[in-house]
């Protein structure tokens, strides 16, 4: 049986970061389903340059003309069926490391060979406090998923993604709120459930695409000609 592959990326540059903890919790959640294979990539100590908009994308072998640690990320993103991206909050939104990853994805999601289409994604953001912009970061990551033709999931206990609150010691232990419907909510639990949700949707989608090939149904070239 084909295994469903779930990728977790944490863009925190800190050792033992809260974001990494939550992304790993999400992968643990994904692993509770049968036939799931996970991979975790931290962006810590990775050398990844920003996109320079040289417009030479689709270079053979390396995708991008810049030869850096992004090659590993490209391969992982293409390998995955579903993904969970986690970012710490810097200045009310996602950090530059995550944004660079998103921007460098251009060669693998252009119209001539979109390698990210029909995957499933979920987002995690961890800030220093409660209103530090977790929603903006999550929205930006969701936009990335939607733009490249992936499906976005979320909605664990009514949230769009998982928003964590960090403390200085590198553990998310103070992040418990009480909800009338769900009781005590911990961000680790939410991350665990998000991972499970992403894995579930990926699994269902992969099963469906065994019967229906999405590329047959949605062909950009044929799509518009049918209109007339």
């Amino acid at each position, binding site marked *: 049986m084909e295994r469903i592959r779930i990728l977790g990326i944490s863009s925190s540059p800190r050792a033992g970061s809260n974001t990494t903890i939550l992304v790993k919790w999400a992968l643990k*959640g994904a692993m509770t*389903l049968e036939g799931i294979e996970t991979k975790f990539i931290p962006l810590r100590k990775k050398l990844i340059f920003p996109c320079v908009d040289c417009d030479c994308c689709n270079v053979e072998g390396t995708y991008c003309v810049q030869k850096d640690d992004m090659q590993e990320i490209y391969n992982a993103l293409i390998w995955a069926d579903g993904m969970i991206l986690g970012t710490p909050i810097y200045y009310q939104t996602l950090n530059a490391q995550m944004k660079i990853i998103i921007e460098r994805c251009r060669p693998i999601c*252009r*119209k001539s060979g979109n390698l990210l*289409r*029909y995957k*499933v994604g979920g987002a995690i953001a961890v800030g220093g406090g409660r209103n530090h912009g977790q929603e903006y970061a999550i*929205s930006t990551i*969701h*936009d990335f998923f*939607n*733009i*490249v*033709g*992936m*499906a*976005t*999931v*979320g*909605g*664990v*206990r*009514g*949230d*769009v*993604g998982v928003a964590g609150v960090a403390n200085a010691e590198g553990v998310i232990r103070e992040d418990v709120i009480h909800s009338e419907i*769900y009781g005590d909510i911990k961000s*680790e*639990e939410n991350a*665990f*459930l998000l991972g*499970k*949700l992403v*894995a*579930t*949707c990926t*699994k*269902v*989608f*992969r*099963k*469906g*695409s065994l*019967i*229906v090939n*999405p590329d047959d*149904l*949605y062909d*950009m070239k044929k*799509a*518009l000609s*049918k*209109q007339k």
Partner: protein
Amino acid sequence: MICIKILGISSSLRVGSNTSILVNDALKGASTIDGVVTKFISLRGKDIKPCVVDCDRCPVEETYCVQKDDMQEIYEALIWADGMILGTPVYSQTLNAQMKIMMERCKPLERLELLRFKINGAIAVGAGRNQGQEYAIHAIQNFFISNMMLTVGGVRGAVGVSGVASQENTIHNKDIIQHGDFGRISAEENAFLLGKFVATWTKVFKEGSSIIDPNNLFSGNENQD
């Protein structure tokens, strides 16, 4: 043969509105996929009252909400649909109140978990280029995601479909831009493609659900141990 049900809702209050045109274009796109049936609902002329949050009595039997108005028809359509496309005109840089009222009244369905695992797309039409179409699309997509639905978009690099209206009630002519990768882009074509994309995702997801039920795999109340 699986029957795929796609619902389009336009929250515009105008006759022959641009939003309705685009939502209908999206439904036309969805109809090109085999096995798709579509339904279009306009919020024009509907009597839908805002949610009275303090009452907290939902879900009520049969009518879902204690307020008996035209929302009952919308509830049934939302439950009926496998995939949906919501279109809103842009008022004051974001979605209009009619669409927001409709979303807020969906609380009983959220509590009954009736909207889970549906596939969605968003459309926003403003009077100009930077009138807040993205904010409206975000608001609609966040509604979907927080109800545990799947959001799709990505037609020619946009999160949803943003239209620019003209006074003559037609999106024609004025809303065409030249794109580096895709050439001439018109909002109607984008809406058509979005509808097709939503229908495709819905079809594939529904095929998968017939083999493994996502509700069996995922339950939010499960203990992590």
